[in-house]
Protein backbone atom coordinates (compact mmCIF):
# COMPACT_ATOMS: atom_id res chain seq x y z
CA UNK A 1 0.00 0.00 0.00
CA UNK A 2 1.25 3.48 -0.83
CA UNK A 3 2.37 5.32 2.26
CA UNK A 4 0.32 8.32 3.20
CA UNK A 5 3.42 9.85 4.77
CA UNK A 6 5.40 9.89 1.54
CA UNK A 7 3.88 13.09 0.24
CA UNK A 8 3.98 16.00 2.70
CA UNK A 9 1.53 18.03 0.63
CA UNK A 10 -1.04 15.22 0.82
CA UNK A 11 -2.13 16.22 4.29
CA UNK A 12 -2.73 19.79 3.20
CA UNK A 13 -4.73 18.63 0.20
CA UNK A 14 -7.29 16.87 2.38
CA UNK A 15 -8.15 19.84 4.58
CA UNK A 16 -11.45 21.51 3.80
CA UNK A 17 -12.94 18.74 1.67
CA UNK A 18 -16.01 19.12 3.85
CA UNK A 19 -16.99 22.76 3.98
CA UNK A 20 -19.39 23.85 6.67
CA UNK A 21 -20.70 27.37 7.21
CA UNK A 22 -23.19 27.17 10.08
CA UNK A 23 -23.88 30.89 10.11
CA UNK A 24 -25.19 30.73 6.56
CA UNK A 25 -26.61 27.20 6.82
CA UNK A 26 -24.33 25.78 4.14
CA UNK A 27 -22.73 22.33 4.09
CA UNK A 28 -20.80 21.12 1.07
CA UNK A 29 -18.52 18.22 0.18
CA UNK A 30 -15.83 18.42 -2.48
CA UNK A 31 -16.48 16.01 -5.34
CA UNK A 32 -12.74 15.20 -5.37
CA UNK A 33 -13.48 12.95 -2.40
CA UNK A 34 -15.24 10.52 -4.76
CA UNK A 35 -12.68 10.34 -7.54
CA UNK A 36 -9.11 10.87 -6.39
CA UNK A 37 -6.94 7.78 -5.90
CA UNK A 38 -4.89 9.64 -3.22
CA UNK A 39 -8.00 10.07 -1.15
CA UNK A 40 -8.79 6.37 -1.42
CA UNK A 41 -5.25 5.60 -0.19
CA UNK A 42 -5.86 7.82 2.83
CA UNK A 43 -9.25 6.22 3.44
CA UNK A 44 -7.59 2.84 3.50
CA UNK A 45 -4.92 3.95 5.96
CA UNK A 46 -6.97 6.25 8.19
CA UNK A 47 -10.42 4.67 8.06
CA UNK A 48 -10.43 1.03 7.01
CA UNK A 49 -7.13 0.22 8.76
CA UNK A 50 -8.30 1.89 11.97
CA UNK A 51 -12.06 1.63 12.45
CA UNK A 52 -14.02 -1.36 13.69
CA UNK A 53 -15.34 -3.11 10.57
CA UNK A 54 -18.20 -5.56 10.35
CA UNK A 55 -17.14 -9.13 9.62
CA UNK A 56 -20.23 -11.28 10.12
CA UNK A 57 -22.95 -12.56 12.40
CA UNK A 58 -22.48 -15.39 14.89
CA UNK A 59 -25.36 -17.35 13.36
CA UNK A 60 -23.41 -17.72 10.12
CA UNK A 61 -20.95 -19.98 11.91
CA UNK A 62 -23.30 -21.52 14.44
CA UNK A 63 -21.66 -24.95 14.87
CA UNK A 64 -18.12 -25.87 15.96
CA UNK A 65 -16.01 -26.17 12.81
CA UNK A 66 -18.21 -23.79 10.81
CA UNK A 67 -16.22 -21.26 8.84
CA UNK A 68 -16.61 -18.67 6.17
CA UNK A 69 -14.21 -16.58 4.11
CA UNK A 70 -14.91 -12.93 3.60
CA UNK A 71 -13.13 -9.87 2.23
CA UNK A 72 -13.08 -7.06 4.78
CA UNK A 73 -11.21 -3.78 4.65
CA UNK A 74 -8.95 -4.88 1.80
CA UNK A 75 -8.03 -8.15 3.54
CA UNK A 76 -9.19 -11.70 2.91
CA UNK A 77 -10.32 -13.16 6.20
CA UNK A 78 -11.22 -16.55 7.60
CA UNK A 79 -14.00 -16.42 10.21
CA UNK A 80 -14.20 -19.64 12.18
CA UNK A 81 -15.80 -21.22 15.22
CA UNK A 82 -13.45 -23.64 16.98
CA UNK A 83 -14.39 -26.87 18.75
CA UNK A 84 -14.62 -24.97 22.03
CA UNK A 85 -17.21 -22.64 20.51
CA UNK A 86 -14.86 -19.64 20.43
CA UNK A 87 -15.07 -17.49 17.31
CA UNK A 88 -11.81 -16.25 15.78
CA UNK A 89 -10.70 -14.45 12.66
CA UNK A 90 -7.48 -15.08 10.74
CA UNK A 91 -5.87 -13.62 7.69
CA UNK A 92 -6.53 -16.18 4.98
CA UNK A 93 -2.93 -16.56 3.91
CA UNK A 94 -0.52 -19.38 4.53
CA UNK A 95 2.42 -18.54 6.81
CA UNK A 96 4.63 -20.59 4.48
CA UNK A 97 4.46 -18.76 1.14
CA UNK A 98 1.20 -16.95 1.30
CA UNK A 99 -1.36 -19.01 -0.59
CA UNK A 100 -4.94 -18.56 0.52
CA UNK A 101 -5.46 -21.47 2.85
CA UNK A 102 -9.21 -21.74 2.45
CA UNK A 103 -10.92 -21.31 -0.92
CA UNK A 104 -14.49 -22.15 -0.01
CA UNK A 105 -17.05 -19.45 0.77
CA UNK A 106 -18.29 -21.39 3.76
CA UNK A 107 -18.44 -24.85 5.22
CA UNK A 108 -17.55 -27.00 8.18
CA UNK A 109 -14.01 -28.25 8.71
CA UNK A 110 -11.90 -30.09 11.26
CA UNK A 111 -8.78 -28.31 10.04
CA UNK A 112 -7.55 -26.17 7.18
CA UNK A 113 -4.96 -27.51 4.79
CA UNK A 114 -3.05 -25.30 2.38
CA UNK A 115 -2.73 -27.39 -0.76
CA UNK A 116 0.50 -25.86 -2.02
CA UNK A 117 2.91 -27.70 0.33
CA UNK A 118 0.22 -29.23 2.54
CA UNK A 119 0.69 -27.35 5.79
CA UNK A 120 -2.34 -28.01 7.98
CA UNK A 121 -3.79 -25.79 10.68
CA UNK A 122 -6.30 -26.50 13.39
CA UNK A 123 -9.35 -24.31 13.98
CA UNK A 124 -7.31 -22.20 16.40
CA UNK A 125 -4.90 -21.43 13.58
CA UNK A 126 -2.01 -23.53 14.92
CA UNK A 127 0.16 -25.51 12.53
CA UNK A 128 -0.56 -29.16 13.32
CA UNK A 129 0.94 -31.04 10.42
CA UNK A 130 3.22 -30.66 7.41
CA UNK A 131 5.34 -32.90 5.21
CA UNK A 132 8.99 -32.95 6.26
CA UNK A 133 8.45 -31.35 9.64
CA UNK A 134 11.69 -32.96 10.85
CA UNK A 135 13.68 -30.81 8.42
CA UNK A 136 12.92 -27.62 10.34
CA UNK A 137 15.19 -26.54 13.20
CA UNK A 138 13.75 -26.14 16.64
CA UNK A 139 14.37 -22.41 16.33
CA UNK A 140 12.44 -22.19 13.08
CA UNK A 141 9.65 -24.18 14.65
CA UNK A 142 9.49 -22.15 17.80
CA UNK A 143 9.84 -18.70 16.30
CA UNK A 144 6.05 -18.61 16.00
CA UNK A 145 6.12 -17.92 12.26
CA UNK A 146 4.26 -21.03 11.27
CA UNK A 147 0.74 -20.45 12.49
CA UNK A 148 -2.09 -18.58 10.80
CA UNK A 149 -1.91 -14.90 11.67
CA UNK A 150 -4.91 -13.85 13.74
CA UNK A 151 -6.70 -10.56 13.11
CA UNK A 152 -5.37 -8.21 15.82
CA UNK A 153 -8.77 -7.54 17.36
CA UNK A 154 -12.09 -9.34 17.07
CA UNK A 155 -15.03 -8.26 19.19
CA UNK A 156 -18.77 -8.61 19.11
CA UNK A 157 -21.90 -6.85 20.15
CA UNK A 158 -25.18 -8.76 20.34
CA UNK A 159 -24.12 -11.31 17.74
CA UNK A 160 -22.49 -8.87 15.33
CA UNK A 161 -18.76 -9.56 14.95
CA UNK A 162 -16.34 -6.80 14.08
CA UNK A 163 -12.61 -6.73 13.37
CA UNK A 164 -10.00 -4.08 13.91
CA UNK A 165 -6.60 -4.24 12.25
CA UNK A 166 -4.90 -2.13 14.91
CA UNK A 167 -3.39 -3.83 17.96
CA UNK A 168 -4.94 -1.20 20.22
CA UNK A 169 -8.00 0.94 19.74
CA UNK A 170 -11.01 2.02 21.69
CA UNK A 171 -13.13 -1.02 22.57
CA UNK A 172 -15.95 -1.92 20.20
CA UNK A 173 -18.72 -0.94 22.56
CA UNK A 174 -17.21 2.53 23.05
CA UNK A 175 -16.73 2.85 19.29
CA UNK A 176 -20.38 1.98 18.66
CA UNK A 177 -21.45 4.74 21.07
CA UNK A 178 -25.22 5.29 20.90
CA UNK A 179 -25.52 3.05 17.85
CA UNK A 180 -25.52 0.21 20.39
CA UNK A 181 -28.97 1.27 21.59
CA UNK A 182 -30.29 1.05 18.06
CA UNK A 183 -28.68 -2.35 17.54
CA UNK A 184 -30.58 -3.38 20.68
CA UNK A 185 -33.87 -2.38 19.01
CA UNK A 186 -33.11 -4.98 16.34
CA UNK A 187 -31.66 -7.72 18.51
CA UNK A 188 -34.51 -7.40 21.02
CA UNK A 189 -36.90 -8.58 18.32
CA UNK A 190 -36.35 -12.16 19.42
CA UNK A 191 -36.00 -13.79 22.80
CA UNK A 192 -33.90 -16.63 21.41
CA UNK A 193 -31.73 -14.61 19.06
CA UNK A 194 -31.54 -13.36 15.53
CA UNK A 195 -30.05 -15.17 12.58
CA UNK A 196 -28.80 -14.38 9.11
CA UNK A 197 -31.13 -16.10 6.66
CA UNK A 198 -29.40 -18.22 3.99
CA UNK A 199 -28.54 -16.45 0.76
CA UNK A 200 -26.22 -13.49 0.24
CA UNK A 201 -26.66 -10.73 -2.28
CA UNK A 202 -23.17 -9.99 -3.57
CA UNK A 203 -23.42 -7.22 -6.13
CA UNK A 204 -21.69 -3.99 -7.01
CA UNK A 205 -22.31 -0.34 -7.75
CA UNK A 206 -20.31 1.78 -10.17
CA UNK A 207 -19.95 4.56 -7.66
CA UNK A 208 -17.80 5.62 -4.75
CA UNK A 209 -18.55 3.73 -1.52
CA UNK A 210 -19.43 6.91 0.38
CA UNK A 211 -22.34 7.55 -1.95
CA UNK A 212 -23.86 4.31 -0.71
CA UNK A 213 -23.35 5.42 2.90
CA UNK A 214 -25.32 8.56 2.13
CA UNK A 215 -27.98 6.76 0.13
CA UNK A 216 -28.59 4.09 2.78
CA UNK A 217 -30.25 6.62 5.08
CA UNK A 218 -31.20 9.37 2.68
CA UNK A 219 -34.79 10.20 3.59
CA UNK A 220 -35.00 12.92 0.95
CA UNK A 221 -34.87 10.69 -2.15
CA UNK A 222 -37.56 8.15 -1.29
CA UNK A 223 -40.53 9.82 -2.91
CA UNK A 224 -38.69 10.83 -6.08
CA UNK A 225 -36.38 7.88 -6.71
CA UNK A 226 -38.79 5.24 -5.44
CA UNK A 227 -42.08 6.43 -6.89
CA UNK A 228 -42.52 3.10 -8.69
CA UNK A 229 -42.07 1.22 -5.42
CA UNK A 230 -44.76 3.34 -3.76
CA UNK A 231 -47.01 2.65 -6.79
CA UNK A 232 -46.44 -1.04 -6.19
CA UNK A 233 -47.37 -0.77 -2.51
CA UNK A 234 -50.51 1.08 -3.51
CA UNK A 235 -51.40 -1.71 -5.95
CA UNK A 236 -51.50 -4.40 -3.31
CA UNK A 237 -54.81 -5.45 -1.81
CA UNK A 238 -55.94 -2.79 0.62
CA UNK A 239 -53.18 -0.39 -0.40
CA UNK A 240 -50.95 1.51 1.96
CA UNK A 241 -50.84 1.59 5.71
CA UNK A 242 -51.75 5.12 6.75
CA UNK A 243 -48.36 6.25 7.81
CA UNK A 244 -46.66 9.32 6.53
CA UNK A 245 -43.21 8.56 5.18
CA UNK A 246 -41.65 11.81 6.28
CA UNK A 247 -42.64 11.81 9.96
CA UNK A 248 -39.64 10.93 12.02
CA UNK A 249 -36.32 12.07 13.33
CA UNK A 250 -32.63 11.89 12.61
CA UNK A 251 -30.17 11.21 15.41
CA UNK A 252 -26.44 11.74 15.69
CA UNK A 253 -25.21 8.62 17.50
CA UNK A 254 -21.61 9.72 18.00
CA UNK A 255 -18.36 8.65 16.26
CA UNK A 256 -19.85 9.29 12.82
CA UNK A 257 -22.79 6.92 13.27
CA UNK A 258 -26.31 8.20 12.62
CA UNK A 259 -29.84 6.93 12.22
CA UNK A 260 -33.22 8.03 10.98
CA UNK A 261 -36.30 6.66 12.73
CA UNK A 262 -39.74 7.08 11.16
CA UNK A 263 -43.14 5.68 10.28
CA UNK A 264 -43.72 4.26 6.80
CA UNK A 265 -46.53 2.83 4.67
CA UNK A 266 -45.14 -0.69 4.34
CA UNK A 267 -45.73 -3.80 6.45
CA UNK A 268 -43.27 -5.04 9.06
CA UNK A 269 -43.07 -8.70 10.05
CA UNK A 270 -42.22 -7.29 13.47
CA UNK A 271 -44.93 -6.17 13.91
CA UNK A 272 -47.14 -4.02 11.71
CA UNK A 273 -49.62 -5.71 9.40
CA UNK A 274 -50.69 -4.49 5.99
CA UNK A 275 -54.10 -5.31 4.50
CA UNK A 276 -52.45 -7.49 1.85
CA UNK A 277 -51.51 -10.02 4.54
CA UNK A 278 -55.18 -10.73 5.20
CA UNK A 279 -56.93 -11.61 8.44
CA UNK A 280 -54.60 -14.50 9.13
CA UNK A 281 -51.51 -12.40 8.65
CA UNK A 282 -52.88 -9.66 10.80
CA UNK A 283 -53.68 -12.09 13.62
CA UNK A 284 -50.17 -13.48 13.47
CA UNK A 285 -48.57 -10.04 13.46
CA UNK A 286 -50.75 -8.99 16.40
CA UNK A 287 -49.57 -12.03 18.35
CA UNK A 288 -45.95 -11.08 17.65
CA UNK A 289 -46.68 -7.57 18.87
CA UNK A 290 -48.48 -8.82 21.97
CA UNK A 291 -45.42 -10.88 22.80
CA UNK A 292 -43.24 -7.75 22.53
CA UNK A 293 -45.65 -5.98 24.88
CA UNK A 294 -45.09 -8.65 27.53
CA UNK A 295 -41.33 -8.14 27.28
CA UNK A 296 -41.07 -4.37 27.06
CA UNK A 297 -42.88 -1.29 28.22
CA UNK A 298 -45.60 -0.17 25.78
CA UNK A 299 -43.55 2.65 24.27
CA UNK A 300 -40.56 0.44 23.52
CA UNK A 301 -42.75 -2.36 22.18
CA UNK A 302 -44.50 0.11 19.87
CA UNK A 303 -41.17 1.53 18.77
CA UNK A 304 -39.70 -1.89 17.94
CA UNK A 305 -42.87 -3.01 16.18
CA UNK A 306 -43.90 0.01 14.17
CA UNK A 307 -41.00 2.36 13.58
CA UNK A 308 -38.41 1.98 10.85
CA UNK A 309 -34.75 2.69 11.28
CA UNK A 310 -31.99 3.26 8.73
CA UNK A 311 -28.60 3.35 10.42
CA UNK A 312 -25.07 3.74 9.13
CA UNK A 313 -22.36 2.66 11.54
CA UNK A 314 -19.21 4.45 10.44
CA UNK A 315 -17.66 3.73 8.07
CA UNK A 316 -19.61 1.12 6.15
CA UNK A 317 -22.10 -0.99 8.05
CA UNK A 318 -25.74 -0.40 7.22
CA UNK A 319 -28.43 -1.85 9.47
CA UNK A 320 -31.81 -1.00 8.01
CA UNK A 321 -34.78 -2.24 9.98
CA UNK A 322 -37.50 -1.44 7.49
CA UNK A 323 -39.92 -3.82 5.63
CA UNK A 324 -37.34 -6.47 6.54
CA UNK A 325 -33.93 -6.12 8.14
CA UNK A 326 -30.99 -5.69 5.85
CA UNK A 327 -27.39 -5.97 6.97
CA UNK A 328 -25.23 -4.42 4.31
CA UNK A 329 -21.52 -3.72 4.08
CA UNK A 330 -19.43 -2.56 1.16
CA UNK A 331 -15.85 -1.80 0.28
CA UNK A 332 -14.26 0.29 -2.41
CA UNK A 333 -12.79 -1.42 -5.45
CA UNK A 334 -11.23 1.80 -6.69
CA UNK A 335 -12.72 5.27 -6.27
CA UNK A 336 -15.60 4.69 -8.71
CA UNK A 337 -16.77 1.21 -7.77
CA UNK A 338 -17.88 -0.54 -4.62
CA UNK A 339 -18.62 -4.16 -3.83
CA UNK A 340 -21.73 -4.73 -1.77
CA UNK A 341 -22.65 -7.68 0.46
CA UNK A 342 -26.19 -7.74 1.77
CA UNK A 343 -27.93 -10.21 4.02
CA UNK A 344 -31.20 -10.33 5.87
CA UNK A 345 -31.50 -10.85 9.60
CA UNK A 346 -34.57 -12.44 11.18
CA UNK A 347 -35.80 -13.80 14.52
CA UNK A 348 -34.69 -17.42 14.82
CA UNK A 349 -38.03 -18.38 16.32
CA UNK A 350 -40.41 -16.77 13.84
CA UNK A 351 -43.00 -18.97 12.12
CA UNK A 352 -42.47 -20.33 8.63
CA UNK A 353 -45.29 -18.13 7.32
CA UNK A 354 -43.80 -15.01 8.90
CA UNK A 355 -40.37 -15.87 7.49
CA UNK A 356 -41.96 -16.23 4.08
CA UNK A 357 -43.66 -12.84 4.42
CA UNK A 358 -40.40 -11.30 5.56
CA UNK A 359 -38.45 -12.59 2.57
CA UNK A 360 -41.23 -11.57 0.19
CA UNK A 361 -41.17 -8.10 1.78
CA UNK A 362 -37.41 -7.78 1.52
CA UNK A 363 -37.45 -8.47 -2.19
CA UNK A 364 -40.21 -5.99 -2.95
CA UNK A 365 -37.80 -3.16 -2.16
CA UNK A 366 -34.29 -4.36 -1.45
CA UNK A 367 -31.46 -5.95 -3.32
CA UNK A 368 -30.21 -6.08 -6.89
CA UNK A 369 -33.57 -7.29 -8.23
CA UNK A 370 -35.87 -5.28 -5.93
CA UNK A 371 -38.25 -2.51 -6.94
CA UNK A 372 -36.00 0.11 -5.36
CA UNK A 373 -32.32 -0.80 -4.95
CA UNK A 374 -31.58 -0.92 -8.71
CA UNK A 375 -32.78 2.66 -8.99
CA UNK A 376 -30.55 3.66 -6.08
CA UNK A 377 -27.62 2.02 -7.87
CA UNK A 378 -28.50 3.97 -11.00
CA UNK A 379 -28.69 7.25 -9.08
CA UNK A 380 -25.29 6.67 -7.49
CA UNK A 381 -23.69 5.70 -10.79
CA UNK A 382 -25.08 8.88 -12.33
CA UNK A 383 -23.60 10.97 -9.50
CA UNK A 384 -20.25 9.31 -10.11
CA UNK A 385 -20.44 10.06 -13.83
CA UNK A 386 -21.41 13.63 -13.06
CA UNK A 387 -18.12 14.07 -11.21
CA UNK A 388 -16.34 14.01 -14.57
CA UNK A 389 -17.16 17.73 -14.43
CA UNK A 390 -15.65 18.38 -11.06
CA UNK A 391 -13.05 20.86 -12.27
CA UNK A 392 -15.86 23.28 -13.02
CA UNK A 393 -18.69 21.79 -10.93
CA UNK A 394 -16.81 20.73 -7.83
CA UNK A 395 -19.16 20.55 -4.86
CA UNK A 396 -22.00 18.41 -3.50
CA UNK A 397 -24.61 20.09 -1.36
CA UNK A 398 -25.86 18.64 1.92
CA UNK A 399 -27.37 21.74 3.47
CA UNK A 400 -30.98 20.63 3.75
CA UNK A 401 -32.42 21.45 7.17
CA UNK A 402 -29.01 22.74 8.24
CA UNK A 403 -30.41 25.09 10.84
CA UNK A 404 -33.66 23.27 11.65
CA UNK A 405 -34.08 22.94 15.40
CA UNK A 406 -35.61 19.49 14.91
CA UNK A 407 -34.05 17.73 11.95
CA UNK A 408 -36.49 15.64 9.92
CA UNK A 409 -35.61 12.40 8.19
CA UNK A 410 -35.73 14.14 4.82
CA UNK A 411 -33.20 16.67 6.04
CA UNK A 412 -29.56 15.78 5.61
CA UNK A 413 -28.31 15.86 9.18
CA UNK A 414 -27.45 12.15 9.16
CA UNK A 415 -25.16 12.57 6.15
CA UNK A 416 -23.53 15.57 7.75
CA UNK A 417 -22.73 13.41 10.80
CA UNK A 418 -21.02 10.91 8.50
CA UNK A 419 -19.07 13.58 6.63
CA UNK A 420 -17.80 15.39 9.70
CA UNK A 421 -16.32 12.15 11.01
CA UNK A 422 -14.92 11.32 7.58
CA UNK A 423 -13.23 14.73 7.36
CA UNK A 424 -11.84 14.45 10.88
CA UNK A 425 -10.28 11.07 10.16
CA UNK A 426 -9.03 11.81 6.67
CA UNK A 427 -7.22 14.95 7.82
CA UNK A 428 -5.34 13.16 10.61
CA UNK A 429 -1.60 13.03 10.32
CA UNK A 430 -0.58 9.62 9.00
Amino acid at each position, binding site marked *: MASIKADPSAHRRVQGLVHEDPARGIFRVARRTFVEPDILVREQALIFDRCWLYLGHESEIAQPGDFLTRDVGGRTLLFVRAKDGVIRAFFNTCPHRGAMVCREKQGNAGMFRCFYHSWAFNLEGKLVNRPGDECYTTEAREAGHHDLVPVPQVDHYRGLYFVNFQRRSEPLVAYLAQAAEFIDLIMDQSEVGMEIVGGTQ*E*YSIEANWKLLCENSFDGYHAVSTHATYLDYLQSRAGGLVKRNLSVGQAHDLGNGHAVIEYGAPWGRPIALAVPAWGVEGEAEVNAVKARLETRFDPARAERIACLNRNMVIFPNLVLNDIMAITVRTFFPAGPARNLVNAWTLAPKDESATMRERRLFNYLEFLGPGGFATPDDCEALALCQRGYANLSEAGWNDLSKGMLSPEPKIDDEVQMRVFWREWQRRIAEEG
Partner: protein
Amino acid sequence: MNATATLTVTRAELEDFLFLEAALLDAWRLDEWLGLFDRDARYLVPAAGAPDDADPTTTLFYIADDHHRLTERIKRLNKPTAHAEFPHSRCRRLVSNVRLLGGTDQAFRATSNYLTYRSKMGETQTYFGHHLYEMCKVDDQLLITKKTTFIDADDIRDQNKVSIIL
Protein backbone atom coordinates in the same frame (compact mmCIF):
# COMPACT_ATOMS: atom_id res chain seq x y z
CA MET B 1 -54.51 -44.51 -23.70
CA ASN B 2 -55.41 -41.35 -21.82
CA ALA B 3 -54.21 -38.44 -23.97
CA THR B 4 -54.13 -36.05 -21.03
CA ALA B 5 -51.43 -38.10 -19.32
CA THR B 6 -48.95 -37.77 -22.18
CA LEU B 7 -46.56 -35.11 -23.28
CA THR B 8 -47.29 -34.20 -26.88
CA VAL B 9 -45.09 -31.09 -26.84
CA THR B 10 -42.04 -31.43 -29.06
CA ARG B 11 -38.70 -29.80 -28.59
CA ALA B 12 -39.17 -27.81 -31.79
CA GLU B 13 -42.44 -26.45 -30.46
CA LEU B 14 -40.81 -25.59 -27.15
CA GLU B 15 -37.85 -23.94 -28.89
CA ASP B 16 -40.18 -21.78 -31.00
CA PHE B 17 -41.86 -20.68 -27.80
CA LEU B 18 -38.63 -19.93 -25.92
CA PHE B 19 -37.15 -18.08 -28.89
CA LEU B 20 -40.30 -15.99 -29.11
CA GLU B 21 -40.06 -15.28 -25.39
CA ALA B 22 -36.47 -14.06 -25.81
CA ALA B 23 -37.44 -11.92 -28.82
CA LEU B 24 -40.26 -10.23 -26.87
CA LEU B 25 -37.90 -9.41 -24.04
CA ASP B 26 -35.19 -8.15 -26.41
CA ALA B 27 -37.79 -5.85 -27.98
CA TRP B 28 -39.10 -4.70 -24.57
CA ARG B 29 -42.57 -5.98 -25.54
CA LEU B 30 -43.11 -6.78 -21.90
CA ASP B 31 -46.91 -6.90 -21.83
CA GLU B 32 -46.86 -9.55 -24.53
CA TRP B 33 -44.15 -11.39 -22.63
CA LEU B 34 -46.36 -11.39 -19.53
CA GLY B 35 -49.08 -12.92 -21.68
CA LEU B 36 -46.95 -16.07 -21.98
CA PHE B 37 -47.54 -16.69 -18.28
CA ASP B 38 -50.42 -18.41 -16.56
CA ARG B 39 -52.51 -16.25 -14.18
CA ASP B 40 -50.95 -17.94 -11.14
CA ALA B 41 -47.46 -18.03 -12.53
CA ARG B 42 -44.34 -17.15 -10.61
CA TYR B 43 -41.02 -15.72 -11.71
CA LEU B 44 -37.93 -16.39 -9.59
CA VAL B 45 -34.27 -15.45 -9.65
CA PRO B 46 -32.29 -16.99 -6.78
CA ALA B 47 -28.98 -15.53 -5.62
CA ALA B 48 -26.11 -16.30 -8.00
CA GLY B 49 -24.77 -19.81 -7.63
CA ALA B 50 -27.90 -21.13 -5.88
CA PRO B 51 -28.78 -24.81 -6.33
CA ASP B 52 -31.76 -25.88 -8.46
CA ASP B 53 -33.81 -26.66 -5.34
CA ALA B 54 -33.32 -23.22 -3.73
CA ASP B 55 -36.47 -22.16 -1.88
CA PRO B 56 -37.57 -18.49 -1.74
CA THR B 57 -39.54 -19.08 1.47
CA THR B 58 -36.37 -19.96 3.39
CA THR B 59 -33.50 -18.27 1.54
CA LEU B 60 -32.84 -14.83 0.19
CA PHE B 61 -33.31 -14.55 -3.60
CA TYR B 62 -32.93 -11.56 -5.91
CA ILE B 63 -36.46 -11.91 -7.27
CA ALA B 64 -39.37 -14.04 -6.11
CA ASP B 65 -42.54 -12.70 -7.72
CA ASP B 66 -46.04 -14.01 -7.56
CA HIS B 67 -48.20 -13.09 -10.54
CA HIS B 68 -49.33 -9.83 -9.00
CA ARG B 69 -45.82 -8.66 -8.30
CA LEU B 70 -44.63 -9.81 -11.69
CA THR B 71 -47.40 -7.76 -13.29
CA GLU B 72 -46.33 -4.78 -11.20
CA ARG B 73 -42.69 -5.38 -12.16
CA ILE B 74 -43.70 -5.14 -15.80
CA LYS B 75 -45.77 -2.01 -15.20
CA ARG B 76 -42.78 -0.53 -13.43
CA LEU B 77 -40.38 -1.38 -16.23
CA ASN B 78 -42.75 0.31 -18.67
CA LYS B 79 -42.48 3.59 -16.77
CA PRO B 80 -39.78 6.21 -17.30
CA THR B 81 -39.49 6.33 -13.51
CA ALA B 82 -38.01 2.83 -13.44
CA HIS B 83 -34.74 4.71 -13.42
CA ALA B 84 -32.41 1.73 -13.72
CA GLU B 85 -34.00 0.92 -17.06
CA PHE B 86 -34.61 4.38 -18.45
CA PRO B 87 -33.85 4.73 -21.21
CA HIS B 88 -34.31 1.01 -21.75
CA SER B 89 -31.05 -0.88 -22.01
CA ARG B 90 -30.24 -2.71 -25.24
CA CYS B 91 -30.40 -6.42 -24.70
CA ARG B 92 -29.85 -9.58 -26.71
CA ARG B 93 -30.68 -12.99 -25.36
CA LEU B 94 -29.19 -16.19 -26.70
CA VAL B 95 -31.10 -19.32 -25.75
CA SER B 96 -29.80 -22.85 -26.29
CA ASN B 97 -29.47 -26.37 -24.85
CA VAL B 98 -33.26 -26.59 -24.78
CA ARG B 99 -34.49 -29.80 -23.20
CA LEU B 100 -37.85 -31.22 -22.20
CA LEU B 101 -37.56 -32.70 -18.75
CA GLY B 102 -40.77 -34.70 -18.70
CA GLY B 103 -44.33 -34.48 -17.47
CA THR B 104 -47.60 -34.25 -19.28
CA ASP B 105 -49.27 -31.54 -21.34
CA GLN B 106 -51.00 -30.45 -18.13
CA ALA B 107 -47.70 -29.95 -16.33
CA PHE B 108 -44.27 -30.42 -17.75
CA ARG B 109 -40.78 -29.15 -17.05
CA ALA B 110 -38.20 -27.79 -19.42
CA THR B 111 -34.79 -26.17 -19.26
CA SER B 112 -32.60 -23.98 -21.40
CA ASN B 113 -29.25 -22.26 -21.10
CA TYR B 114 -28.98 -18.56 -21.70
CA LEU B 115 -26.45 -15.89 -22.41
CA THR B 116 -27.83 -12.37 -22.13
CA TYR B 117 -26.04 -9.17 -23.00
CA ARG B 118 -27.24 -5.86 -21.62
CA SER B 119 -25.81 -2.55 -22.75
CA LYS B 120 -26.48 0.88 -21.29
CA MET B 121 -24.55 4.14 -21.24
CA GLY B 122 -21.51 2.59 -22.84
CA GLU B 123 -21.20 -0.39 -20.52
CA THR B 124 -22.10 -3.99 -21.25
CA GLN B 125 -22.96 -6.71 -18.79
CA THR B 126 -23.12 -10.40 -19.52
CA TYR B 127 -25.46 -12.73 -17.69
CA PHE B 128 -25.17 -16.47 -18.09
CA GLY B 129 -26.98 -19.40 -16.58
CA HIS B 130 -29.97 -21.62 -17.08
CA HIS B 131 -33.72 -21.38 -16.82
CA LEU B 132 -36.05 -23.98 -15.37
CA TYR B 133 -39.61 -23.78 -16.66
CA GLU B 134 -42.78 -25.34 -15.39
CA MET B 135 -45.30 -25.16 -18.19
CA CYS B 136 -48.55 -26.46 -19.53
CA LYS B 137 -50.29 -26.69 -22.87
CA VAL B 138 -53.81 -25.33 -22.90
CA ASP B 139 -55.93 -25.11 -26.07
CA ASP B 140 -52.82 -25.76 -28.12
CA GLN B 141 -51.02 -22.85 -26.46
CA LEU B 142 -47.94 -23.21 -24.29
CA LEU B 143 -48.08 -21.30 -21.00
CA ILE B 144 -45.46 -20.77 -18.32
CA THR B 145 -46.59 -21.54 -14.77
CA LYS B 146 -43.20 -20.96 -13.17
CA LYS B 147 -39.92 -19.65 -14.49
CA THR B 148 -36.79 -19.81 -12.40
CA THR B 149 -33.67 -18.14 -13.73
CA PHE B 150 -30.38 -19.29 -12.28
CA ILE B 151 -27.37 -17.04 -12.66
CA ASP B 152 -24.53 -19.53 -12.83
CA ALA B 153 -21.83 -17.18 -11.54
CA ASP B 154 -20.30 -16.92 -8.08
CA ASP B 155 -21.90 -13.52 -7.59
CA ILE B 156 -23.10 -10.57 -9.68
CA ARG B 157 -20.15 -8.24 -9.12
CA ASP B 158 -19.63 -8.06 -12.91
CA GLN B 159 -23.31 -7.47 -13.66
CA ASN B 160 -24.02 -4.96 -10.82
CA LYS B 161 -27.72 -5.77 -10.56
CA VAL B 162 -30.68 -7.56 -12.14
CA SER B 163 -32.82 -4.74 -13.47
CA ILE B 164 -33.94 -6.56 -16.62
CA ILE B 165 -36.02 -9.69 -17.00
CA LEU B 166 -33.53 -12.44 -17.71
